[in-house]
């Protein structure tokens, strides 16, 4: 069973499997575009998108309105996501683990957290703009707020469900609380922590775009908004694809990084 699995993983078909859906999608898109089923002012031809994307990523500034802006946009967006996500993890993860283990903290937090969670993130936008103005701080605030919930909730669920036998085993082997936390509780919660971090990072990208739609000069969300106002559908699509690609890469980097740093992430998550 395992051998067959390993064999399958080394075949060429296995490698291209992730590309199948995107490829089919582009094929269908091309067909729709060539036959004129959907007019190109709504959905441009894939080749046109590719051209716009090329100019955006590799073009020289001055060639066109968006030429060569990719690096500064992506850099600004990554920085905002990084700050917001880091803040969410720094607060959400320890608080989540605490509330999963201590009923006092759970009781204290759960009503508030679940009430706040019910508020759609976009509702915070007007308030955040009043508080923080337009730009970095509003975006970071929105990202941090949105990413907090999955990180917190998954950490809490994981810490609550951690096998009690592991904790008992630690106690009878003479493990004190501090070491127990770092050597048993957190590794034992790792698969949940990973889920929370990945969901949190994913939603960070969503709220990044929301924060950047408010009229900041740079960033991937800003480009999309700008392109909408100029009627550059092709650029909107390029923006979407760029965010999808960067989001996917950041998710994989997160996993690789966690596995590099933690045995428990390598072996159990």
């Amino acid at each position, binding site marked *: 069973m395992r051998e067959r699995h390993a064999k399958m993983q080394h075949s060429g078909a296995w490698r291209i499997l992730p590309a199948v859906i995107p490829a089919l999608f582009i094929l269908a898109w091309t067909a729709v575009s060539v036959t004129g089923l959907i007019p190109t002012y709504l959905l441009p031809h894939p080749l046109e998108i590719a051209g716009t994307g090329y100019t955006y990523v590799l073009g020289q500034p001055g060639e066109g309105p968006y030429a060569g802006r990719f690096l500064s946009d992506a850099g600004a967006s990554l920085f905002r996501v990084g700050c917001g996500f880091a803040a969410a993890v720094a607060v959400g993860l320890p608080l989540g683990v605490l509330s999963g283990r201590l009923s006092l903290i759970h009781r204290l937090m759960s009503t508030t957290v679940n009430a706040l969670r019910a508020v759609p993130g976009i509702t915070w936008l007007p308030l955040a703009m009043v508080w923080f103005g337009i730009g970095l701080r509003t975006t970071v605030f929105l990202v941090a707020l949105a990413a907090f919930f999955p990180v917190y909730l998954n950490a809490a669920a994981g810490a609550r469900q951690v*096998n009690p*036998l*592991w904790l*008992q*085993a630690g*106690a*009878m*082997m*003479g*493990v004190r609380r501090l*070491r127990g936390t770092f*050597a*048993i509780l957190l*590794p*034992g919660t*790792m698969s949940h922590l990973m889920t929370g971090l990945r969901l949190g990072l994913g939603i960070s990208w969503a709220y990044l775009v929301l924060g950047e739609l408010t009229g900041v000069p740079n960033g991937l969300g800003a480009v999309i908004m700008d392109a909408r106002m100029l009627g550059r559908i092709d650029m909107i699509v390029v923006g979407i694809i760029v965010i999808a690609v960067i989001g996917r890469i950041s998710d994989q980097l997160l996993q690789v990084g966690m596995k590099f740093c933690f*045995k*428990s992430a390598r*072996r*159990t998550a």
Partner: protein
Amino acid sequence: MSSHLKAVALPGRKGKGKILEIERLQKVFPMDGGFLPVLEEITFLAESGELICILGRSGCGKSTLLKILAGFVPPSFGKVLIKGTPVKSPGPDRCVIFQEDALFPWLSVRENIAFGLTGRDQSKKSRTLEVERFLELVGLGEFGDYLPHEISGGMKQRVALARVLILKPEVLLMDEPFASLDAQSREEMQNLLLTLWQELAHTILFVTHDVNEAVILADRILLMSKNPGRIREEIRVDLPRPRSRDSSALLNFSRRLYEALRD
């Protein structure tokens, strides 16, 4: 209490003084308005180096008794003394082998065995040697780098044994540790336990519902009855060791015990 006996008692030597004293232990669980008595009037002594089996049917409170001795659960009344000191919390002087798999799945076999040693005052080199020694002792010399999910149930219990024996506990508390193994592995594990016990001379309290297991292992059997859990009878197993599983003396002993357990 014969305090001078304690003074001369060496840890890990057979029959030299009492190591565990359980006095009038009771446990009640609160249950909708009332109380459910689980354990009543449990009193016994364990001599150093003794192997005691606590035998009873499911639900007689034998696991609860073990949890109290381990310090996971406080008793409602009565006391538990280990070498004269009351038990308040779990500690490495009373190590537990659980019925279910309680290894850390993110650690290799070797790392699991070394886990309890971390933070002890011991050089890294001697720690490594110690871990290798216990890997060999439980017959897992070649499996040090495996992860728990890659080895069988019997091997997992070997790791569980090694990771606590390496801490040199005074008392080993075993809660039906071999119940989920197949008959052959169970027999192997019983033999291994006896070998280790003869070599390392720990005091062992072994909870089981299996009459044969109790007869093969025990110096003394505490027979428990149900509702509430009490020690009904204390039976000394004076069969010579090593005990052969199919000797008529042992089979007779088992049969008599089985009948005693039934009524």
